[in-house]
């Protein structure tokens, strides 16, 4: 079998893994709590009782929902599979470690992308205008992959308890939300605040969303996409490398 057909075959099989993850893990308690309930209630706590326009709120809500949902499944799959010993089954099957990891990322991406369509749909139902739909769509896809890869990096430590990984990922996810221009737009942040915000990939997606919904981003769309692309590549490579290294330790 030549390397190209092997690559195609493994890509197909990572879709099989993704479908399996969607089917088994979407309805798990921690995924629903950390992926949907947390961002919604956190945002409500911020927005309720304040006089914000929907144009201002939606980019932040969209960013938060996409970030939380995309990072909800990918960190938990590996410990769940380790605990149930199904990871051993997958490793002994004709799959590479990268195929398994990519499957986890794809499932997480699909979850984040689909759930983030709900607030977007609600905004559209309220006659919200999207100025550059293609950029928003592209941003959702790229950021979804980026956050899913980030989520997978959280579970690289060979822990077998999903709660350990969830706690670890929450410790990182919450501060990220506060530095990414969701509650306070980038242009209102002080200089040091802006510098901190640039280390968060969520900053760039929120800025894309503000461009497309509010028509007033802080950075240019090109910079936002380039930064998101770089973060996605970095997280993907790190997630693959770290999991390839720690996967045998899980068995």
């Amino acid at each position, binding site marked *: 079998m030549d390397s190209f057909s092997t690559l195609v075959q493994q890509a197909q099989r990572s879709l099989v893994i993704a479908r399996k993850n969607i089917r088994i893990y979407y309805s798990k308690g921690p995924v629903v709590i950390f992926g949907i309930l947390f961002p919604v209630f956190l945002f409500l706590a911020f927005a309720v009782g304040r006089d914000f326009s929907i144009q201002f709120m939606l980019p932040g809500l969209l960013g938060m929902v996409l970030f939380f949902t995309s990072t909800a499944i990918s960190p938990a799959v590996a410990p769940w599979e380790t605990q*149930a010993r199904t990871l051993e089954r997958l490793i002994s099957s004709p799959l590479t470690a990268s195929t398994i990891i990519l499957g986890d990322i794809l499932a997480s991406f699909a979850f984040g992308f689909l759930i983030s369509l709900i607030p977007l749909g609600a905004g559209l139902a309220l006659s919200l205008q999207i100025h550059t739909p293609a950029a928003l769509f592209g941003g959702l896809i790229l950021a979804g992959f980026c956050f899913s890869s980030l989520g997978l990096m959280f579970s690289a430590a060979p822990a077998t308890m999903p709660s350990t990984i969830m706690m670890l990922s929450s410790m990182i996810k919450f501060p990220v939300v506060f530095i990414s221009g969701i509650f306070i737009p980038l242009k209102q942040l002080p200089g040091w605040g802006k510098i901190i915000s640039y280390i968060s990939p969520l900053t760039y997606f929120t800025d894309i969303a503000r461009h497309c919904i509010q028509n007033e981003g802080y950075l240019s769309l090109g910079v936002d996409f380039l930064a998101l692309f770089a973060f996605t590549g970095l997280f993907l490579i790190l997630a693959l490398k770290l999991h390839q290294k720690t996967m045998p330790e899980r068995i």
Partner: protein
Amino acid sequence: MYPRKKKESPMADSPKKHGSLALQVSGLTKKYGNVTAVNAISFQVKKEEIFGFLGPNGAGKTTTVRILTGVIKADGGKAVVLGGSAGSLKAKQKAGVVPEMTNAYLDISGWDNLMLMAEIYGVPKRQAYKKAEELFKKIELYPQKGQKVRTYSKGMKQRLILAMSLISDPEILFLDEPTSGLDVKSARLIRGFIKELSSQGKTVFLTTHQMEEANQLCDRIAIIDQGNIVAIDPPEKLRAEIKEMHSVEVSFDRKVKTESLYQLPQVSTVERVGDKFRLYTSSPGEAIVSLVNYTSRENVGIISLNTLTPSLEDAFLALTER
């Protein structure tokens, strides 16, 4: 008592005439810290053979299976599975695995577990459906195929795992203690399945610590102890190897002194068992001749005379004696 010895030729005395090799293992080594779990073991398994891997707990059986199935990497040595390096996609595509612990997805049905494995192995959908129907009937789980695996008993789960390993019609099957802790029905069903697989031309690599299972099923057995292979032979030959454990059991029509039996040529030990004597010998035939000569000379009648060969368990204990 019995010196541990390693066979020179691991391929010796295969009971079947096989074309080529399914498994070639050479100098395979795995260490966990300072502990050597598998110590430079070498053996070969022919196609269509049922090869037993027998050893006490912690001997290195599961570690070996995990290396051969690509779950863990060896620290040294080489293992080739049906022409592909152990752990390679080529080798894994041709192999089915039944691990020591059941590992089906509990939150989906048995049927969906089989379909998932079929997709992972790239089995065409129509073929997978047909094969799954056939397998569910064979493992006697057809009525429960739509139930979540969470509701299955241990035996049912293990039968499902066997079916999952066979959905891709593998050329070689690795089974790690497949009947351990199972009910009689499930264990018998799995053993029957293994025999059937061999008759269909599949190669089976079976680890077990159940002597009778190995005795009934395996063409050849490797005995592993503390990470070292101490013998590889067919079960009958392994038993025969424990020469000093052959014995002649005899009872006489009148009282005989134990010391006088010690004097007989070829008899190494004499043990009194009720009204009988058990004479341990490496050569039962010659021991019987000298026993008959003794009874004629001493004018003693023989009431009963039996030769006893050591069991596989005796052989196992002798070979793994520390």
